[in-house]
């Protein structure tokens, strides 16, 4: 296995990108990453995307994106793992470079979610749950995470206010991220008082519907300095785990076992523990998801994740900053792109390029990207060289 570095990243502002197509937004971010790295070619490409077939009627993205990026005939393949598609695409690129199969590999992610109406988007996203035994009965993703929230509140006393604190903290961070879809601050009252979607989850507990893409360029660490003028960031660990597709099949409804397992594997591979991590980008598709994720990754004891944002421990400047980018909540959640955008934030933080949301002295960053209710999860640890 070769050591692997990220030498370039690219992303444009996320949002409702009516004037641009799926292939446009992917290609623009991919070009930004290629230009950032300063490389003159790529050897292979992975495209993370959850369900372009349902969102825009286009499958076969390996070919579409290689064609429009002008890099055909290189090998290019779409990677699907629901909302973890981006993180898993990055991992496939990492494995490609680490194994020696290819030297310069692009890992990208994309989703175009606004070209269909809300009902269509809800349906497309619901395909990440158990179609026969959850969705058939009328469950939605906010509904599944709401049932996790009710369980967490019942067992540990987690409060409505603690959910709101997660949204408020992430929007504060996102207000300092010019690429975020919703770069503005919220109050606790706004979050708790907004439209109820699935009790107790309100619309402001949910990540938004987003069009967006992100890309990263990976190469062997020992080639990084020759290939690129950018400061290389080393991939210290890449881990991936799975769990039951149905939430009801789990022994503990609000414990994200796949996140725990992927986290354990990543810590072991890097020879690090939670105390060594400078900051983490977690998959806050809903506010309760961030609370459960920071417990499963070992930053908080089981049941105590609700105190994270409330106490300020997870703020930029706190003990363990969580989602300095604004997270999925404020930055947006184009599902297939999210995992790659998390890596992009870590790379930019480690290069010291994050302005008002910069985590001072950051040397090691972690990403956690999950599909469905964490039926799959990718965790990466990256460090300054």
């Amino acid at each position, binding site marked *: 296995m070769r050591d692997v570095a990220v030498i370039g990243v690219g992303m444009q502002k996320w949002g409702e990108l009516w004037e641009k197509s799926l292939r446009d937004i992917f290609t623009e971010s991919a070009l930004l990453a290629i230009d950032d790295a300063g490389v003159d070619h790529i050897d292979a490409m992975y495209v993370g995307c959850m369900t372009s077939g349902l969102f825009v009627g286009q499958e076969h993205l390996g070919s579409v994106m290689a064609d429009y990026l002008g890099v055909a005939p290189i090998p290019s393949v779409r990677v699907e793992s629901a909302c973890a598609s981006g993180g898993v695409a990055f991992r496939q690129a990492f494995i490609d470079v680490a194994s020696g199969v290819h030297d310069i590999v692009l890992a990208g992610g994309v989703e175009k979610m606004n070209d269909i109406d809300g009902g269509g988007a809800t349906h497309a996203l619901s395909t990440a749950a158990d179609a026969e035994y959850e969705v058939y009965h*009328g469950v939605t993703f906010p509904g599944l995470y*709401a049932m996790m929230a009710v369980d967490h509140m019942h067992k540990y006393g987690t409060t409505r206010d603690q959910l709101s604190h997660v949204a408020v903290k992430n929007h504060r961070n996102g207000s300092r991220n010019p690429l975020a879809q919703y770069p503005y601050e919220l109050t606790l009252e706004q979050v708790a008082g907004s439209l109820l979607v699935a009790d107790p989850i309100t619309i402001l507990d949910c990540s938004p519907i987003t069009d967006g893409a992100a890309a990263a360029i990976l190469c062997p660490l020992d080639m990084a300095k020759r290939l690129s003028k950018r400061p290389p960031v080393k991939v210290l660990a890449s881990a991936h785990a799975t769990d039951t597709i149905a939430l009801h099949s789990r022994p503990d409804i609000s414990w994200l076992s796949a996140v725990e397992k992927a986290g354990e594997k990543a810590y072991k591979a890097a020879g690090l523990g939670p105390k060594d991590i400078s900051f983490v980008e977690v998959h806050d598709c809903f506010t309760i998801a961030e609370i459960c994720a920071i417990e499963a990754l070992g930053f908080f004891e089981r049941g105590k994740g609700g105190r994270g944002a409330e106490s300020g421990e997870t703020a930029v400047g706190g003990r363990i900053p969580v989602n300095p980018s604004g997270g999925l909540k404020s930055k947006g959640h184009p599902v297939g792109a999210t995992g790659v955008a998390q890596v992009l934030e870590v790379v930019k933080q480690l290069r010291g390029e994050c302005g008002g949301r910069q985590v001072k002295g950051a040397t090691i960053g972690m990403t956690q990207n999950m599909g469905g209710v964490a039926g799959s999860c990718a965790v990466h640890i990256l460090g300054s060289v």
Partner: protein
Amino acid sequence: MSTSARYWREIPQRYRLEAAKCRKCGKVHFPPRVICNTCRGREFEKVVLPDAGRLLTHTVIRIGPSAFSNETPYAMGIAELDGGVRLTAQIADVEFDELTVGMPVRIEFRKLREEGEAGILCYGYKFVPAR
């Protein structure tokens, strides 16, 4: 949208709560599986789930999928049935503010939805409060 073949295939579980008990370790799987995820046994006997249990968690879906637009808002939950099998279903005949963790429920056979232009009526299980 399901085809009629798919609807027909799922009837043993939806209508009759047929599950599969692993002959090796005794774990009951609903729905049935080809291989036991606990002991990797591959032989099962057919069993029928009990119809009584308790709610482990719940929610009220207020923004629902278009297939359920006539029913929204509706209560949903995960219940553990006597014997340990857990499943997700709607909770019928309940006031939303009655919903509590631990609430006793039983399973009833109800209409779930209509599918497609022809409006196939889909039936299955729902929870109701066990009063």
